[in-house]
């Protein structure tokens, strides 16, 4: 491992240092934050750091896609779920109920880190050569190079991935769908009786809705919009229904 930055220019070094710091702090933030929303924001920060590093490494397209897909879609999805499900209560991370889990985890994590850093010093040539074409092709922009590669060498994986996306969409819809309930059940004259046997009655009428509506209603079901509020300790309504 080269421990010297001699070969790197100053702006590059500074950029790397800042981005790396963002990444590390962000990663730690994800793990340490008690509040899932904070974790998500820290994750976004990390993602931006990684995007910067991508640009540094001449992967402009990936940097952009990283932001568009990860920050713009995935984490937003996380936030949606967090906010709409009303599960954004702070988690008490003082102690772990699984004995020894935390210590072992820390130990293993550090071991992995140590091993990888060690690996940086070792050599294990596999003899593998470039397979998918050169990355630097004169003045050709990164987007063109990557695009050509994806639509020629990696065409089949690309198509399969698109199929995977469709499957994921269908799967998500099926998962998020609430099974149709007979309307008769919803119009039960005794709400309290229904409350004993099933989920709260507010769910009665929605038969076919997306996660958005559902989420808000869950929030409502859980007896209190307070659930959607940050900073409210986990001591209310649905504590009983947990266990």
């Amino acid at each position: 491992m080269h421990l010297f930055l001699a070969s790197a220019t100053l702006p590059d070094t500074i950029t790397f240092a800042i981005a790396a710091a963002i990444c590390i702090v962000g990663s730690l933030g994800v793990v340490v934050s008690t509040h899932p929303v904070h974790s998500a924001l820290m994750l976004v920060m990390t993602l931006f750091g990684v995007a910067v590093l991508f640009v540094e490494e001449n992967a402009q397209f990936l940097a952009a896609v990283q932001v568009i897909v990860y920050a713009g879609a995935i984490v937003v999805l996380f936030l949606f779920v967090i906010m709409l499900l009303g599960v954004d209560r702070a988690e008490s991370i003082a102690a772990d109920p699984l004995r020894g889990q935390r210590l072992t985890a820390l130990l293993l994590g550090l071991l992995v880190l140590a091993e990888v850093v060690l690996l940086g010093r070792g050599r294990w040539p596999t003899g593998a050569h470039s397979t998918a074409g050169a990355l630097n092709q004169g003045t050709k922009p990164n987007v063109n190079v990557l695009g050509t590669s994806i639509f020629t060498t990696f065409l089949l994986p690309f198509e399969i991935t698109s199929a995977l996306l469709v499957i994921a969409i269908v799967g998500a819809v099926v998962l998020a769908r609430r099974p149709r309930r007979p309307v008769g059940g919803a119009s039960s004259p005794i709400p309290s009786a229904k409350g004993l046997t099933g989920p709260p009655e507010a769910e009665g009428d929605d038969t076919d809705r997306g996660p958005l509506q559902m989420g808000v209603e869950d929030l409502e079901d859980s007896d209190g919009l307070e659930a959607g509020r940050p900073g409210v300790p986990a001591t209310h309504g649905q504590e009983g229904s947990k266990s």
Partner: protein
Amino acid sequence: MGDPLFIHGVDLAVFVIAVVKVVVAFVVLLVSVMLMIWFERKVISDMQNRIGPNRAGPFGILQTLADGIKLFFKEDLMPTNADRVVFKLAPYLALLPALLIFTIVPVGGVVTIAHHTVELQVADPAIGILFLLALSSVAVYGTMLAGWSSGSKYPLLGAVRASAQMISYEAAMGLSIVAVVLESHSLSTRTIVDLQASSVLHWNVFRTGVIPFLIFVVAVTAELQRPPFDLSEGEQELVGGFHTEYSSLRFALFFLAEFMNTITMSAIIVTLFLGGPDGPGFHFLRWLWPILWFAGKTVVFLYGYVWVRASLPRMRYDQLMDIGWKLLIPLSLAWLLIIAAIEQSRLWGVAILVACVPIYFLLQRSRQVSRRRAEMQAVETERARSRKDPRSVLFDSLLADEPAGGEH
């Protein structure tokens, strides 16, 4: 390829020029926001047959400044339930994308300063369009976090609505941009603008066949949450939208961000579809004319936004989602396919066009079916609603797909 400014390496002059460009862009943007607010108020007043701001400065042109100063000195309130960090962070997250997107807009041609070729735009990254898409997808955060961190239900609902809306329309917007990219074979805004130069017929509006332009304008309007797509701040339902709990300077920031976004997006429309700074010029002050053309085109769009705001009623939420998912996305997708096919050969274009016809009818049929089902469900819901507590009725009507009644 790339910014000609950095071709010969970075020296002090280059550095200074870059910094100057940033500062100028920032200042210009802020000032134009100020003017925009004034402009909007004045135009709407005119349309509503009243005078509008006329006290501060000539024609009330300093009214915005006065409002800003007032807001600056107001008490900064923070709700007790608020998530303090995020609450403070959100306005900046809203402002930042608006500012950054403007950096890739070419506001004029190319000038030479101190032997350096300088493009009149803050930056010209090779992946400019991706940058635009990335930032517009990041723009959701400000809204979303602001609403959530307020710790209050109306802002939360407003934020959820807004972000759902933004995410929905982003797809259509992206697809219509792809049509432009397909025509220009480049992601750089400078290249896109250059390719449109010299003739009105080279403008992407015509080269992509108008449809992507229309889709883009509608989608951008929804992204900006300008009327008629400003449901997230429907006063009757949600008080003031996601920034209900904000006050003082933080509120000003949101306000700023909103109008800055409007300006930026108008500029982007002009850049992508209307040739940017392209237009006839004179030898006298050669560098000035493109800038004027650019500003003029942008103002036309700004006026359009104001005009729309003054004249169109707000849409219903289900209509909004319908337009986004069932009209704009399929349409832009189909159009994109057709353009791509024509790019390949004319025969392919015809083939795809023909293929789109049955798909269109299929979509029509599915819409019909879903509408009928929704109507049937509405009846059931009406029955169930009669015995619910008022609060849930409110939310059902705000968030349900089916017509909530009263707004027809």
